[in-house]
């Protein structure tokens, strides 16, 4: 098994044509070892989300290569990409993107069912994850009946349903209040401790501070790559100005 979870070489993504052509991601090289939590920061429009989409196979690069768990994915067809996503990638979005007409448990079961697991297996896995994130009593609730924080926890549970190689989170706390953000920080901390590879795009320094490594982007390029201590002596509450 490759020790590298995600690798990108010379990654380029351009939008538009002619004079309005924009290089959203510009010659990016990136290696994310297994178990690492990588935070990507930068101003709006610098290409953070596009990078995340490229790493997860949601978009195809204009140039360059993307490798996931030792397998090149930028050359895969749509069906193969879908299969790769369902087994190897977990997405967490700022806007949650839960299926509104399915309950919390059914949303979490979704990737397992897509991967061909039986309903029983999918239910067992979803039950464990919801329990882990304190949502066991909300399993049958529809997303509209959940708070923003609870919805995002369901989204994280869904992202972990197939035990993915990497979890890609795009502004996961962007729509959350302080208390829900604190919850989410705890969850990411727990995932990091459990050895889950995480790539988190964020504007929030408190979220970035939970990472092992921080990459800063500007105009589609990496401008800084910093190894963080990875421990937070003051605790998570301290990070957001609250004491635990």
């Amino acid at each position, binding site marked *: 098994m490759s020790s590298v979870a995600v690798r990108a070489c010379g990654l380029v993504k351009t939008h538009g044509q002619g004079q309005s052509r924009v290089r959203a991601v510009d010659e990016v090289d990136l290696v994310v070892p297994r178990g690492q939590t990588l935070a990507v920061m930068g101003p709006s429009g610098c290409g953070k989300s596009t990078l995340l989409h490229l790493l997860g196979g*949601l978009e195809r690069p204009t140039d360059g290569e993307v490798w996931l768990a030792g397998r090149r994915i930028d050359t895969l067809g749509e069906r193969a990409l*879908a299969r790769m996503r369902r*087994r190897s990638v977990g997405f967490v*979005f700022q806007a949650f*993107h*839960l299926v509104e*007409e399915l309950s919390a448990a*059914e949303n979490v079961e979704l*990737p397992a069912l*897509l991967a061909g697991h039986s309903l029983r297996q999918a239910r067992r896995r979803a039950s464990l994850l919801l329990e882990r994130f304190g949502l066991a009593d909300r399993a049958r609730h529809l997303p509209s009946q959940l708070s923003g924080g609870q919805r995002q926890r369901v989204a994280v549970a869904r992202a972990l349903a197939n035990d993915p190689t990497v979890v890609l989170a795009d502004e996961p706390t962007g729509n959350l209040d302080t208390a829900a953000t604190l919850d989410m920080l705890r969850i990411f901390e727990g995932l990091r401790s459990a050895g889950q590879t995480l790539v988190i795009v964020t504007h929030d320094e408190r979220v970035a501070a939970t990472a092992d490594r921080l990459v800063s982007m500007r105009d589609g390029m990496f401008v800084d790559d910093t190894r963080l201590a990875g421990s937070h002596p003051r605790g998570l509450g301290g990070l957001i100005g609250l004491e635990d």
Partner: protein
Amino acid sequence: MGSNVLVARLVMADIRRHRVQAVVLLLAVAAATATMALGLSLRGASGALYEQTRAATAGPDVVALSGDAGPAVTSALASLADAPEVVAHHGPYRIVYADLTTRDAASSVVVHGFAETPGTVNRPLVTSGRWVRPGGTVLERGFAAALGVGVGDRVTIAGRSYPVVGTAVTAATSVYPGAAQIGPYGGPVDYSGLAWMTRSDARALASSQDLPVTTALDLKLRDPAATDAFRDAHPDLAIRITFHSWQFRAEQDTVILRNSRPILVVGSWLLCFLAITGVAALAAGRAVEQTRRAGLLKAVGATPGLIAAALFAEYLALALAGDALGLVIARLAVPAVAAPTASRISDAAGLTGAAVATATALAVAVAVLSTLRPTLRAMRTATVTALTATAHRPRHRPWLTPLSALLPTPLLLGLRLTARRPGRAVLQACSTATTVIAIVALLTAHVQRERGYGLDGSSVLPNLRGEHDRRLILAVTILLIALAVVNTITFTWTTAMEARTNTAVARALGATPGQVSAGLSTAQLLPSLPGAIAGVPLGVGLLSFFAARNAAAPPPSLLLGAALATLLATAALTALPAYLASRRSVARTLSAETA
């Protein structure tokens, strides 16, 4: 396995969430498939009714009819009974032509003189009361129903009063009012009912007023299918004899349904069109939501095929459920529709396999055509784009802005809203035209002058064929109008929802809710206007394919009034959804858009 569960789960959840849309689709498909299955099954159903009646009444394979009576005729007919092809016979018996009056109606009648104990061939099935006895008469059930008389009532035949002792059905004659198979001396026949009396009563009736009498013989052949061969084998009889085969009789039964089939089949196509436009409008209204859902399913690993399966399965399941409902309705309705008279046993009529298959294909077509575009859009849209999908941006039309700027605000808004979705405007126009076509057909059916089934063409006994046609056109028109109503409301609401940001901006810039509401209504009325105008000649043209040459046309003022009434109804129908949409909070709409 997991994917199937997922598709089923998504379908069920989506149906639960959009119950109204599901019900509309179900009912629209049910209406279209029921009408089509009925239309296509009529011929087979009519044949089945005749077959069942023939079997239950030992119906003759051939009826030999002479326009005269007397020993020579009786002898010539009786010689046919000795033919080697004949295995059984009934008669010769006398048929007396008379007038029958009740308290309320008068009609021509043919009286068959029968034995008190029926023979082996042509044994009328008594459906109420008892078989003939001296002094009493049995009326054919379809005739009795048209007269409104039953067992115990009295009727007057050629001035003589008889108690009705029973009602019965037979396969030896055509359905009411075609009981007179040939006229006296082989001449023409009037609309007539059928009555039975004992042989002696029939003889007494005929001689009392010197009434016209003909003679008939019912024959059962060794090979029931060989009726033509039997006729051809007996060309040189001493008297002129007319042979009526059972196949001819079965064919005659369909005459009363001659217009029913095109009414139902053409009606079903129109219903199908409205169902597709309505469901397509509903689907288009949810296109953004569907695309977003497709995006998030793709993000968690769903393939394009699975996305298409989930989207399509929902509409297919609803369409097939609607098809099943429509077929059940058609099965229940077919005996009544296929037998406008009560002259046949009417519990045998069912749907033909071809009708079921065609109706099911129609339901699948509705599902495919109404979901194809949103499904393809959801499949083709890139995942990231789909996750942030917004309403489709209309094309910029530089000519429209200065043109509409000259108009009053509601007209300005209406014209621009119409121009945003030209395809939908065309559908709205077609939907209106379809409604007007149906109304034109209904009006045309009501201005026809028909010969009634009463004495000398009196309408005291109505023309059942015309009545039946009008009832069917009315039913189809009601269904078409119901679907058109749903479509108009759907079009208005979908337009309002898609343009909510623009209308909110217009209100922020000073447009009143009334102007916005009027603009939304105008957006539906603009395409409805050409639709209503085109519907009149289209309706007249369509009817010309099926109408008789001497058919009367409704006065132009009536047709114009129908088109105008359709437009007014459209305006009224758009008022409520337009009003509700125009009252939405501007601030909430704009902030939701920027969130």
